[in-house]
């Protein structure tokens, strides 16, 4: 179908599977995880490695439960920063793409700087931002910097991928710019925008963590990344692992939520959200 655009990322469906194959696909990673944890515990016990060098998974879990009040508070701080950065990236990216789409001159003037902002490693920008901005703002700006570019470039791609015949039809019926944008360009770009948001979600978390680490060495802060840095100085390795575990879980949850949103929005019409059977 030429009238359907494919998004840059597919939702990752395979061919229709039998339930047995699906079960194996879920079971295999679980077995690998269990084996990894068991070997880890075994190595620590057999070699009698002290917990300030490498704590066993049992010790990590113990710390996770024991330090939950502190860690959960830090998790909330990091998640809030990520969310703020993500929302800013989503709105900023889409808004900028819409502006670029309306005015080529604006696009030519600003797009190179969007690229520069993207290719400069955020970890190098973070310390500078912390000098000029209040810490909380600087952290959000970091999350925004890494998150907005995928949204911008994907939305731009989507807005430019409008079916030519549909565009002709809109002109034939005398559609205004706003009507074309609202009824044609935005719906056409939606799968691309959602793909961009999915990337931006994970990147916002990375941006938040990078900024927290940069800020953490300066003293203040209470996010998860700061906890990791702080625990490192105190040789509280178990807590480092526990915080890392939470960050990882947060990343997974963000990805799953965004993928689910994308699926729910597109399931009635877009190829990526449909099974392969039709």
């Amino acid at each position, binding site marked *: 179908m030429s009238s359907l655009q494919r998004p840059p990322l597919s939702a990752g469906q395979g061919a229709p599977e039998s339930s047995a194959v699906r079960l194996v696909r879920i079971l295999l990673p679980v077995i690998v995880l269990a084996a990894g944890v068991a070997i880890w515990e075994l190595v620590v016990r057999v070699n009698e490695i002290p917990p300030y060098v490498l704590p066993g998974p049992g010790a990590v879990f113990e710390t996770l439960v024991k330090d939950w009040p502190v860690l959960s508070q830090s998790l909330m701080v990091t998640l809030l920063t990520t969310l703020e950065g993500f929302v800013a990236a989503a709105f900023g990216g889409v808004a900028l793409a819409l502006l670029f789409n309306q005015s080529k001159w604006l696009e030519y003037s600003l797009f190179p700087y969007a690229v520069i902002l993207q290719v400069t490693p955020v970890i190098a920008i973070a310390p500078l931002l912390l000098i000029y901005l209040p810490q909380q703002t600087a952290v959000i700006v970091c999350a925004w910097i890494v998150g907005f570019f995928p949204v911008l470039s994907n939305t731009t791609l989507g807005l430019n991928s409008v079916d030519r*015949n549909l565009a*002709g039809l809109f002109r*034939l019926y*005398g559609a205004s710019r706003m009507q074309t944008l609202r009824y044609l360009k935005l719906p056409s770009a939606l799968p691309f925008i959602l793909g961009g948001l999915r990337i931006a979600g994970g990147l916002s978390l990375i941006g938040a963590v990078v900024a927290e680490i940069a800020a953490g060495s300066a003293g203040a802060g209470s996010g998860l990344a700061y906890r990791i840095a702080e625990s490192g100085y105190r040789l509280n390795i178990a807590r480092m692992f526990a915080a890392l575990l939470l960050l990882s879980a947060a990343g997974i949850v963000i990805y799953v939520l965004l993928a689910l949103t994308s699926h729910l929005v597109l399931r009635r019409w877009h190829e990526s959200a449909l099974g392969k059977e039709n």
Partner: protein
Amino acid sequence: MAEPAALSEVDTSTAGLAVSLRGVTKVYDSGVMALGPLDLDVRKGEFVSLLGPSGCGKSTALRLIAGLHAPTSGSVGVSKPAGQARPGHSIGFVFQEPTLMPWTSVRENVRLPLKLAQAPATEASARIAEALMQVGLTEFADAYPRELSGGMKMRVSLARALVTDPDILLMDEPFAALDEITRFRLNNDLLSLWRNLRKTVIFVTHSVFESVYLSQRVIVMTSRPGRISAEFRIDTTEPRGEDFRTSADYAGYCRKVSNALAPSYPGKPG
């Protein structure tokens, strides 16, 4: 893409003409001479086919009439119904592909022209229901385009073109991608729609059989640049039906039209 052409103020109403092209040429930016010069008059209520090989400019001619492209020279006159300011709304266009919005239902696809013209909602609903009934898709109003077969998608496209009740229907090889059985059925449905609604139809096709079956007048075009090389009037007893498709008359017309078309295919004996 070019902005819609400013249609010239040729007064076509007095002569009973729906469309009038005078010395129209189209040269693309690449310098390719696509069309013309072309002179073409289409009477109101007439069913005319533009027949020719791929790339002979027949689609370009249709897009010029629709105002989707501006002619390089010459004038394009399209009759305007009384009380309607915009010429675009008196024209319905059916593309080669169904060109539906995949993200919304059949009903919303058909609603599009009315929505863009900001027609009142109650009036729009009635018109949509009527257009869907005309193409026999009333039951599929809430289906999504991907759930429909190729022939049904084309019907939606036709309903969308009919929903503004245009005087002129421009069709750009609408059935070319369909299987023969579906195409025959849609041919018959189109003929009965044309008989009932009395619209002017300009139908672009590369099928001799389709053009003879459908039209009152077949205009054969040659390629590079697109010019009119021959014209045939198809006179038969109306209404036409499957009887006509198997008649000796039909075969005779098809032979004549094919012979006129043959020289435009290089490498084939004329």
